């Protein structure tokens, strides 16, 4: 530990204490201060992690998967440092380490679980040598900030070249862009869905990988699960979906829950894994967590136990009670995430009351055109009515209009608490409102819900 790191950690810890005194979240600023004093602080602080660090990245599912992993390692009896509350840039990781570190700077924990924004992977890999890197999937997302998907994949692949051979790379076999990141890596664990009946209910009109990442020929799909994720191969150069090491041979989707039957290398059957979250995308999140557990030698039974007791993360299907109605918060920030959430609502059936919020701040993506790549046409027949809010509420209302939602079933309400109030008033007692929201709109809605007395501040989680 250098004097500089010690000073950096002290500055960060003081900032953290100060922020908490004033009742503010401390998920980013303390880390930012620490990194300003010592840009290498993360490297030094992670030396105390006896079982190493796990990096979780990809477009969708990072937060849910890393929370699942944190639960799994704790179920194995390990202590964990984990950046929460969606602060997944370098400063968020530093803040998480600060919270658990000694004043000297070394963090005392068995394992670090770090959710990393996909554009930040090269930076973070330049700082630390993780034991495991997981990439869940790569979809188009906030193209103004994250580059195009091909370019993003190339940057991640380049940063993988600097990893030691001992680092295990855990990859989604069903995503051709992600699977190709295995090229040149010795230690890989693939996960995927082998259930021939698994497929999204939303037409897969938007895809980022219809062409082979190696030779650019059109890919062939035996089966599409979500967007470009499925059982793929290239008829031209022969690049093929790798055989998953962790595979679900059957996925049972139930209201609010998912049961995964895993393939077993031995003839003896293994118990199915129950995950208390709906939708195919959560099946992938659970498989990713199980694959990482395997990479760090935690048993399937331990992982299964932790997953069965899993609680959703902030804004990821979290349910809030408000005046005898339930608000279900669903973070949607890109077309694949929107289509997956829609698919889950359609699987559930029935007519849904929607509160939809669209912002265009940096963290949301300043370009709101992604709503036109999202399949509102599939959602609208299942919409009873929609309350629309946010900085770009009028763009979103227009999207609903062109998807066929009649004017009388839609209302634009400015102001977060007014929009929440209207959504509650329009729902019957005992009814549910599905809140589809971008990231910064979710933060604002959550603040409004706290001001209205329905929830605590989220950093108290």
């Amino acid at each position, binding site marked *: 530990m250098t004097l500089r790191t010690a000073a950096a950690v002290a500055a960060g810890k003081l900032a953290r204490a100060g922020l908490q005194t004033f009742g503010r979240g401390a998920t980013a600023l303390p880390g930012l201060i620490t990194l300003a004093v010592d840009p290498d602080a993360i490297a030094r602080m992670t030396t105390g992690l006896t079982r190493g660090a796990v990096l979780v990245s990809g477009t969708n599912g990072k937060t849910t998967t890393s929370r699942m992993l944190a639960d799994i390692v704790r179920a194995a009896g390990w202590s964990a440092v984990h950046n929460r509350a969606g602060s997944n840039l370098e400063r968020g990781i530093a803040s998480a380490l600060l919270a658990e570190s000694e004043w000297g700077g070394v963090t005392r924990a068995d394992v670090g679980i770090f959710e990393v924004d996909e554009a930040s992977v090269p930076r973070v890999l330049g700082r630390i040598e993780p034991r495991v890197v997981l990439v869940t999937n790569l979809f*188009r997302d906030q*193209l*103004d900030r994250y580059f*195009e*998907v*091909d*370019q993003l994949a190339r940057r991640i692949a380049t940063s993988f070249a600097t990893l030691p051979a001992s680092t295990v790379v855990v990859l989604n076999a069903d995503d051709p862009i992600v699977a190709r990141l295995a090229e040149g890596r010795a230690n890989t664990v693939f996960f995927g869905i082998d259930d021939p009946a698994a497929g999204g209910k939303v037409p897969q*009109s*938007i*895809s*980022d990988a*219809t*062409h082979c990442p190696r030779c*650019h020929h*059109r890919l062939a799909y035996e089966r599409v699960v979500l967007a470009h994720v499925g059982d793929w191969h290239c008829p031209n150069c022969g690049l093929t979906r790798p055989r998953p090491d962790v595979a679900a041979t059957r996925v049972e989707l139930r209201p609010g829950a998912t049961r995964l039957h895993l393939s077993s290398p031995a003839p003896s059957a293994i118990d199915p894994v129950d995950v208390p979250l709906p939708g195919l995308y959560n099946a992938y999140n659970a498989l990713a967590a199980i694959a990482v557990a395997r990479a760090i030698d935690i048993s399937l039974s331990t992982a299964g136990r932790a997953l069965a007791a899993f609680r959703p993360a902030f804004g990821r299907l979290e349910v809030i009670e408000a005046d005898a109605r339930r608000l279900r918060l669903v973070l949607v920030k890109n077309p694949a995430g929107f289509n997956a959430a829609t698919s889950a609502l359609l699987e559930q059936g029935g007519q849904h009351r929607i509160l939809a919020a669209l912002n*265009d701040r940096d963290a949301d993506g*300043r*370009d*709101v*055109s*992604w*709503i*036109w*790549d999202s399949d509102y*046409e599939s959602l609208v027949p299942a919409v009873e009515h929609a309350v629309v809010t946010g*900085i*770009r*509420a*009028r*763009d979103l*209302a*227009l*999207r609903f*209009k*062109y*998807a066929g939602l009649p*004017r009388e079933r839609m209302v*634009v309400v400015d102001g977060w608490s007014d929009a929440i109030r209207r959504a509650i008033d329009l729902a019957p007692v005992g009814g549910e409102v599905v809140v589809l929201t971008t990231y910064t709109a979710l933060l604002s809605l959550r603040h409004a819900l706290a001001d209205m007395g329905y929830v605590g501040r989220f950093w108290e989680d």
Partner: protein
Amino acid sequence: MSASGRMDLRICHLYPDLMCIYGDRGNVIALSQRARWRGIDVAVRELEAGDTLDPDWADFYLFGGGQDIGQDVVSKDLQGPNGDALKRSIAGGAAVLSICGGYQLLGHEYVPAEGPAIPGLSVLDVTTRAGKVRFVGNLLADAPQGPLIGFENHSGYTYLGPKATPLATVRVGHGNNGADKTEGAVQGRTIGTYCHGSVLPKNPWLADMLLAWALERRHGPAILAPLDDIEELAAQRSAAEVAAARP
């Protein structure tokens, strides 16, 4: 006329899997809906690289932007028979909306920072060169018909020749090249623009201009019934306010 005896519109979406980024497909949705709301039947076909383009079929083409890989595959496809067919179709009266990469490929050529120039179809008298700075942000411009609002994201700088007319004059953002204040190009019934967003939903005047051009090919000059564009104009206004405050 369609089988039902009503007026019909045929839309061809060019390379939707490779050239359709930043919500470009919303333009097909917008044009289709604005036709249907007026009682016009709509048929949409998609053309993938390797398919055969029928120059007599479509009244309207949408040609969106793409990633680098997509533009390589598509430019090769257009250097074959599909390029000739598309030129014939446009000469025969079909209307075109091209955006970003599609706009560039309808010009004379794209000159990258390194390597040989990529030839275009020369449907538009424009040339594009790779620029040093990528233009990313809200784009607000003024056309004679009304305001034009969208979101630009491009590193190609496009320069207009004498046969192409600018679509609009930049108020906020960069437009064709960041220097001459022009945005987009019009030549005959072909339009090029850097507005993603999608461009047609929030700019209904542009959607209806293209719709009228497209219908004219087989149905003669058409007068479009007005639509109630309250939501369109509200979205246009609020996006323009955001663009002015946060370029």
